């Protein structure tokens, strides 16, 4: 009987060849509707992955059910298209079982916040080192147009012909309250911002939560147009950056200032300078600023994009491995005979 540590097979190491975007494209035909925001997110992911220095075989994409959850079929890594809402739990098992893997969870507003809401908050709470990308299109697409838990109050959809009578969830609020250690938001059509945000999420140790505003051009077309359309975006969205004042506008002439306990939009000039503005601090430990920003909604405020909050906390799988190591230091590598022969024992002589 071997007393060596059970290991996950013997995986031969190989030098990391320089990978390109093409290496992450599968032979499967992409079947999203033409014009879907998912294409852009896929393209940015395939652009970011080769830059991470992680070999393809050590990357796993896990998804649930919904349009976004077809994502793993199109990325040439290991992939698991699981069942509705359960991707964070499957991913937790993958990462806990083999901490060497880089694990991505692809989910949507219905998958992640409705049927899988429980798994999402608990995966985040445990701080498993996985990267959760939630495609938020504020609608159910795959089931053809019912309202979702992020649909705005009063929205008329196939299942709410008189308008919804439910308040929407704010995904970032959920993530922050669930003790997320990395919370960010980006936009499907802002490709540079999106790829940078995905790269940041990948680098974070612990659960990364990224909300991506994603247009469903069939069932909820233009959901974000009021602020995200390219021509007006710089006036109605604000890219937040760590250590920098909250300035926005095409002419960078507007900013966010704190008035008592509330943020307000101010015009720069006259007596107001950048020095009067809120400075973004994504590491602020009390998260107050992150909550301010997460609660800023159009039209009262520009909609923030970027990393809202990041903190460094030990991740679940690392703590689990540490417990195993500590137990082995204290008790040795587990002697099966000794384990079986413990308790109330006696010998019957021949």
């Amino acid at each position, binding site marked *: 009987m071997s007393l060596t540590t059970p290991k996950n097979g013997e995986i031969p190491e190989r030098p990391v060849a320089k990978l390109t975007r093409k290496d992450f494209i599968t032979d499967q035909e992409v079947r999203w509707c033409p014009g879907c925001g998912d294409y852009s997110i896929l393209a940015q992911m395939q652009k970011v992955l080769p830059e991470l220095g992680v070999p393809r075989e050590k990357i796993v994409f896990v998804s649930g059910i919904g349009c976004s959850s077809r994502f*793993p079929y199109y990325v040439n890594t290991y992939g698991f298209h699981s069942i509705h809402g359960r991707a964070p739990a499957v991913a937790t098992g993958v990462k806990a079982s083999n901490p060497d893997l880089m694990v991505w969870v692809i989910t949507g507003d219905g998958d992640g916040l409705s049927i899988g809401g429980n798994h999402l908050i608990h995966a985040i709470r445990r701080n498993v080192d996985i990267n959760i990308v939630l495609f938020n299109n504020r609608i159910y697409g795959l089931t053809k147009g019912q309202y979702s838990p992020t649909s705005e109050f009063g929205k008329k959809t196939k299942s709410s012909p008189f308008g919804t009578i439910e308040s929407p969830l704010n995904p970032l609020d959920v993530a922050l309250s669930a003790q997320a250690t990395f919370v960010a938001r980006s936009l499907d059509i802002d490709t540079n911002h999106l790829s940078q945000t995905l790269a940041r999420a990948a680098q974070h140790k612990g659960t990364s939560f990224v909300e991506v505003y994603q247009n469903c051009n069939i069932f909820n077309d233009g959901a974000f147009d009021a602020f995200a359309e390219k021509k007006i975006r710089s006036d109605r969205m604000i890219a937040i950056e760590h250590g920098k004042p909250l300035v926005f506008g095409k002419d960078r002439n507007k900013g966010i200032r704190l008035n008592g306990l509330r943020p307000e939009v101010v015009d720069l000039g006259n007596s107001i300078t950048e020095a009067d503005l809120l400075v973004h601090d994504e590491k602020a430990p009390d998260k107050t600023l992150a909550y301010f920003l997460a609660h800023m909604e159009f039209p009262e405020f520009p909609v923030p994009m970027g990393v809202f909050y990041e903190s460094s906390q030990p991740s679940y799988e690392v703590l689990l491995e540490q417990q195993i190591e500590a137990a082995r230091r204290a008790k040795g590598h587990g002697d099966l005979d000794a384990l079986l022969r413990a308790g109330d024992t006696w010998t019957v002589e021949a």
Partner: protein
Amino acid sequence: MTMTRTAEQPLTELEQVTIRFAGDSGDGIQLTGRQFTVTTAIIGNDLSTLPDFPAEIRAPAGSLPGVSGFQINFSSKDIRTPGDEPNVLVAYNPAALKVNIGDLVEGGYLIVNEDAFTSGNLDKAGYQSNPLEDGSLTRFRLIKVPLSTLTQNALASTGLGKKDTERCKNFFSLGMMYWLYDRPMEPTLEWIADKFSKNPQIAEANAMALKAGYNFADTTELFGQHFTVKKATLPPGFYRNVTGNEATALGFIAASRLSGLPLFYGSYPITPASDILHELSRHRNFGVKTFQAEDEIAAVAATIGAAYTGAIGLTGTSGPGVALKSEAIGLAVMTELPIIIANVQRGGPSTGLPTKTEQADLLQAMFGRNGECPVAIVAPATPGECFTMAVEAVRIALKHMVPVFYLSDGYLANGAEPWQVPAASDLPKIEVNFAKSIPEGSEKFMPYARDPQTLARPWAIPGTPGLEHRIGGLEKQDVTGNVSYDPHNHEHMIRTRAEKVERIALDIPDVEILGKPEGKLLVIAWGGTYGAVTSAVEQVQAQGKSVSAIHLRYLNPFPKNLGSILQRFEKVLVPEINMGQLRLLLRAKFLVDAIGLNQMQGKPFKISHIIKKINEVLG
């Protein structure tokens, strides 16, 4: 306390004794029962136990729902059940008397704590008059003991208050039972010293109470005689007292060692399966990763993730939890990943009887998912066998790349028996073959290419270069594993998944017959009814009647010789703690007109109950 022995009292040898302790769940009944069990195991009797506790942690004191019981059957012969009826009932209060007196054999010892028979407690138990005085117990050998008073007197020198001394009365009664059945006090005295090492005053008090009870029984000639039960002639070897849940946990750890794969246990606390989680979570040094999930679904989903990654993926629960896991088990069937679902069955439906046993989840394991969704099913027969069948569940899952149900039950889980401990070196290795590279002659890795014998697909774990592939719950094209909506492929895959499970029959042992290979009656059992059914059949066989028995440890697929055995008997009887679930499967598969014996009272069968039915069927 000093006592002088008056005279040596007669010591009578018995072959077998069944004792039941019963009282409030706060009376320490389970502890008392376990101490009696350990001592009995150490002196070498064969034994079997049946703990029986209420679902409420502390139901109101003295109430009928709050009664907790512990039965032990011990013998100088081979025994397989906790005993039909106790010969001795120790009742700590009127409620315990009321709930249990119906089971005590006529002429049996009835030992009661006289102090607890107050008008208040009598009311709570629904007694109109005091049964200790109204002559209703004359069929029994009633021994009235003022347990609380005696314990208090015995502990007067300790300076402990009444509340503390009251809590020692179970040790006083245990001491009495040790004298009555000629057991040594040392194992319990050692246990007390160890358990209460940080509280020497309590340790001292409990030890004094135990000795006082022993001496009280000896000097007062309360019983007039005492009894001894000789060592059983168990096969030589190293023995351990185990419960089914302990043996289950040990079996899965052993399977981890035998396969060289780490064990991942995803679970959500649920009675009566939680002890498996408790036991496994203690053994991090064996590389065991326990994951207490947010719910049953997350527990199985994480388990599937772990299996995908190359660990032994095990999830454990009871029936209500299995209901929640159903969709995910279907995912494991579709992705053909090896997971094990341990179901410690309890009374259902819904929340049902959480602390009581039942066998009513067989059809749930067999069919309880959407679509055609076959899984393998195994079931241990005894607490000790939980070890063997846990290893077997893992072996089948890994070799055949299939989810395996492991069906234990509350009776096996909490019951204890002597278990002959195997040497680790004697246990068979479990072979694991991860896919390492693209097979020669292929250009691409095919995740659903199949082993020609078993039809198992390759297990290619993340981290393996060149074998990157995608799996999921959508129907798969055979060989490539691509998503496929092709109608013929769908039917082909349904038949393939079924065939893959069927072929496990070639990889499991034939079922053995207890008795002659043909005859008038064949009794078929599965799971925890093994002991009662086997004992009943042996007793009827001893009367020269034509009855044989088989016990199924493999429920899906069935052993390949089962069909031919059935043909050789005129009648088939299937005793089950359900409405006839195995019987339904046997009738469907073999067109056999099987007769049922079905009992659903949260309790195991009595041997006598089965004997009666066998005789009735034999005519």
